[in-house]
């Protein structure tokens, strides 16, 4: 018994220090900052400034709206992909090919789009070949949505694929035997059973989409401002950490709400 206690103490010391110093303390400090003035006095002014300002509220609404659009776009592309992948032979291999791009540094993928979409870039030379005048593709809402969706697609495909793979094939056979056509089987049997994967995918895409800031800068050209951009701006540019922390707390709340809404009995951590 004594040996066991010694062992536990030996394990908890490094791990506990990490928990206290890097998990609990930073979040507490952030919460604390959001309730202080720049001199360290207690205030509710930051939250007042946030909720009293039309700009911030509009920014938050926009951020949620864009995250929603990104989630919908990735879902629409990913569900059929996951469904079709699941019917292939060698599906593990194809799945690996879906996952591979996520291992490539995100900055590099975003950088590729700068080349593809720029005014003299490949897409524009391609469309001008067809007689269309070059368009301003970069620094638009569309380019932001495109790049964000591109990056998030694998994170949506994987959980949906996994939940589809777990469905007992006999269920769709049974549905077929009972006279359902392919569409009915998909609609009433497969889709409801794959909901846990869809929810996990939404969670894995929506939360990061709220906090994107690198893509808004490089691709969105600061036209799109998300909660993440606002936090970065307040911490690193205007140095107003108190207001930055306030927005951070709001982002955390938004994250928790999303997680509660998409919670499922069978929790599978697919992202990270």
């Amino acid at each position, binding site marked *: 018994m004594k040996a066991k206690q010694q062992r536990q103490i030996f*394990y908890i010391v490094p791990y506990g220090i990490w928990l206290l110093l890097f998990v609990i303390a930073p979040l507490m400090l952030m919460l604390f*900052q959001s309730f202080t003035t720049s001199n360290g006095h207690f205030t509710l002014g930051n939250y007042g400034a946030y909720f009293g300002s039309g700009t911030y509220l509009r920014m938050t609404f926009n951020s949620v709206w864009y995250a929603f659009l990104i989630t919908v776009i990735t879902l629409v592309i990913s569900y059929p992909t996951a469904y079709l992948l699941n019917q292939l032979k060698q599906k593990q291999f194809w*799945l690996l090919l879906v996952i591979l*791009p996520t291992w490539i540094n995100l900055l590099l993928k975003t950088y590729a789009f*700068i080349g593809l979409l720029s005014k003299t870039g490949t897409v524009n030379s391609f469309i001008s070949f067809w007689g269309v005048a070059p368009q301003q593709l970069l620094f638009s809402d569309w380019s932001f949505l495109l790049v964000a969706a591109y990056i998030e697609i694998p994170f949506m495909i994987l959980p949906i694929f996994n939940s589809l793979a777990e469905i007992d094939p006999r269920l769709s056979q049974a549905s077929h035997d009972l006279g359902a056509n392919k569409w009915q089987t998909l609609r009433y049997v497969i889709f409801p059973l794959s909901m846990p994967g869809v929810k996990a995918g939404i969670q894995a895409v929506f939360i990061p989409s709220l906090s994107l800031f690198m893509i808004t800068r490089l691709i969105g050209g600061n036209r799109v401002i998300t909660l993440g951009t606002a936090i970065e701006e307040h911490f690193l540019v205007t140095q107003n950490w108190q207001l930055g922390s306030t927005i951070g707390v709001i982002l955390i709340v938004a994250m928790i709400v999303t997680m509660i809404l998409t919670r499922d009995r069978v929790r599978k951590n697919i992202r990270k």
Partner: protein
Amino acid sequence: MKGKFKWSNLYLVFVFVLLYLPIFFLIVYSFNAGDVMQGWDGFSWKHYVELFVDTRILEIVVNTFLVALLSSLLASIIGTAGALFIYNQHNQLIKNIFLSLNNILLVSPDVIIGASFLILFTVIGFTLGFTSVLLSHIAFSIPIVVLMVLPRLQEMNPSLVTAAKDLGANNWQMLARVVLPVISPGILAGFFMAFTYSLDDFAVTFFVTGNGFSTLSVEIYSRARQGVSLEINALSAMMFLVSLLLVLVYYVISKRSSKGKKRAGTRLVMPATEGL
């Protein structure tokens, strides 16, 4: 029927082209003799030559790998200790509390992690630079290691530990001779995940890096803001190869460690991209 099949394959081909186009685009242009990602002026290695004489980039590459290596090593040690602690904890409530605390950093957006670490380092008066980046990378890698090691511990036959105890092994012998060998595939997988997370991270590093120190992601970000340079394409091609190699290693490890189990390979995990 046959026609329908072709349509579905066409869709998959379309998705795969979409996924890989930007990456191959970058790599192809790294061999362009011209200086922009546009047109094609012939094949050339000149951007690779530029890359290899750019001492600043080379120094940053070394820094990035050093941070990744050190942080994943230390995170593997601390994470394994954490997993062992959680595994040995029999009180279900405490166990769940620790598991939830462990997962906080996994679900938090990178911006939050970066900003809150920045507050932490400033409050305790820590200078930003190599050490602050290293500490942050260790911090966000630990929960990954815990999640990779815990399932191995749960699959371990508990009689092994009891037998070792019966045979008179002390704590250290039990750990080094019995437990660690059994869970080593999990630790290795955790190490590799932590390594790729660290290589990939941009947002957290961006917040805690200060002025003097830079990693590849941060450097690419600042260069990309100034405009396109094909040297970065050459760098991407090299990093693509490194990523490919890491995936292969990771794949082999996870295949080997889950040998004989039916779910082999489905539990591939992806590196984080949050907040970028």
